[in-house]
């Protein structure tokens, strides 16, 4: 082996080692964070934590029942706004792939999903809270919905594009109208994938805090009235973490653990649905490939 060849080989080895290190270093924070969550949160997870209302500072016990309820309500509002519009937009994007308008919408959907969530919160504040004069679950839900909308739209587009063209053509050849083909054949075939995307988007909305600071605002009491301020799990974690009381800080860890467990469960269900989709598609067509154009 010439010196030059040896040099090239050594350089390759150095870079290979670097990528190994990068992969290891990237995974370390995940391990650290998960370990801390389990360490500090697990002991606090008692039945009362889920069923009780928050206790006053310095008093042991108490729970986050109202925050869990509030989060569910906020996410429900967000999803009921964003999912139908998102799916409609996704269908449009998939059908007008190369259209100029579709390209603009696609770009802007990606841009929207990259905007700071706090700006979405300020928008919802100016749009709903300021005119109505008080914080509300509506405003919080809408802010979260804007966050979810582009994710659902883009995911629907990707999933619809995976549906084999032959399937659409078969339906049309049988005399199905375009809209019935779209809804009963295309959308239904793509549905498991869309459900996955919706679940992932949902878990992102459930973990968001910044846009809720001045929309949902938080509420120490039980409330299910969407026109009033409402508690949310991430908000509760935020205020507990910044409190000087040990009991509340401990509850912040427990809340964070609950939040992470919720987020994980949602995405595990999502993954299960992805598996179902693969099976469904392979049952529909013998060979499933990405069909473009």
């Amino acid at each position, binding site marked *: 082996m010439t010196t030059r060849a040896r040099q*090239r080989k050594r350089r*390759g080895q150095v*870079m*290979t080692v*670097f*990528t*190994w*290190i*990068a*992969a290891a270093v*990237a*995974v370390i924070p*995940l391990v650290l*964070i998960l370990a*801390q*969550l389990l360490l500090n949160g697990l002991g606090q997870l008692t039945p009362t934590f889920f069923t009780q209302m928050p206790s006053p500072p310095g008093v042991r016990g108490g729970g986050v029942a109202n925050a869990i309820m509030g989060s569910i309500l906020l996410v429900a509002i967000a999803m009921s706004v964003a999912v*139908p519009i998102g799916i*409609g*937009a996704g*269908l*449009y994007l998939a059908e007008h792939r190369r259209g100029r*308008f*579709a390209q*603009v*919408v696609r*770009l802007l*959907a*990606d*841009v929207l999903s*990259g*905007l*700071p*969530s*706090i*700006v*979405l919160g*300020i*928008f919802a504040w*100016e749009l709903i809270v300021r005119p109505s004069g008080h914080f509300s679950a509506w405003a919080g839900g809408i802010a979260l919905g*804007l966050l979810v*909308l582009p994710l659902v*739209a883009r995911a629907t587009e990707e999933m619809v594009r995976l549906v084999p063209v032959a399937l659409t053509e078969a339906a049309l050849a049988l005399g199905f*109208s375009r*809209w*019935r083909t779209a809804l009963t054949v295309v959308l239904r075939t793509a549905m498991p994938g869309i459900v996955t995307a919706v679940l992932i988007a949902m*878990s992102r909305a459930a*973990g968001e*805090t*910044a846009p809720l*600071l*001045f929309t949902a605002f938080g509420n120490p009491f039980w409330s299910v009235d969407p026109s009033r301020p409402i508690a949310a799990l991430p908000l509760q*974690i*935020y205020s507990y*973490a*910044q409190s000087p009381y040990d009991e509340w800080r401990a509850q912040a*860890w427990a809340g*964070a653990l609950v*939040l*992470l467990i919720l*987020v994980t469960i949602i995405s595990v269900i999502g993954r299960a649905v992805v598996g179902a989709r693969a099976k469904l598609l392979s049952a529909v067509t013998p060979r499933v490939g990405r069909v473009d154009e």
Partner: protein
Amino acid sequence: MQSPLGDRLYRTITTVCAAAIPFVLVLLTAVVVRAAWPALALHAGDLAFGSTWDVPRERFGAVPAIVGTLLSSLIALAIATPLALGVAIFTVDIGPRRLHEPVAFLVNLLAAIPSVVYGLWGVFVLIPLLRNTIMPALLPLGAVMPLFRGPAYGPSLLAASLVLAIMILPYIASVSREVLRAVPPTQREAALALGATRWEVVRDAVLPAARSGLIGGIMLGLGRALGETLAVAMVIGNRHAIPDSLFDPAYTMASLLANEFAEASSDAHLSALMAVAALLLLITLLVNVLARWLVQRVATGLPGSRWT
């Protein structure tokens, strides 16, 4: 069997849904800029050049928040980019094939952790670690490098940058991975046929072809870092001053909004915060449009993106 009415209705509905996205963006920009208008008209000079933030006296100098935003994001980018590119190369070209998916999955999990959980971890784990171990170890360097001057409280520009780096790493890594995988296999095979080593294939055939997409991915990470709010608000120290050292507490535009917006009572204060929001919105809009454009160029294989 055809039902033109149904088809027309279907087309109208999907078009309206698609139009909702640009509509939201335009409305968002218009609403925020309009609300910021009074402050822009009255305090534009102060906002852009002032560094005193004194609400009762209506001094709204946004320079410390702007500088803090840019500094924390750029430092985070400097930490995260090499790691993220390393991860992407590892999970596409270099690492053992059976580790590709698991490593990518684990790194993606970082993106699923809510911001507030990062903040919590930052406050109770990272900051004590910085204050008790890392900062004291680096302080002697402060004699030669002003970057590491004390006092070392813990909540600091450094803490925020580290948390941000962890948070944006998965985004940069997953976009880079997508872009690297979009490079046609023939490109790699050609380099291999010429006798390139595995690393040379990456360096000479893959990276140049993916370059604009990789830059797009990095800018996407930058966009995330600029707008990240709570995790930063919890660890950066929230001080209205331009930091002189990595150990100094600082402020960002997003955390300023998170801390003051709900409590803003005077119209002037509110409008000044709106102006900060408008500026943040415009910066992130620009960064995102540019980033997406670069990524789409590679993903759709436009000429000029594949060969350099």
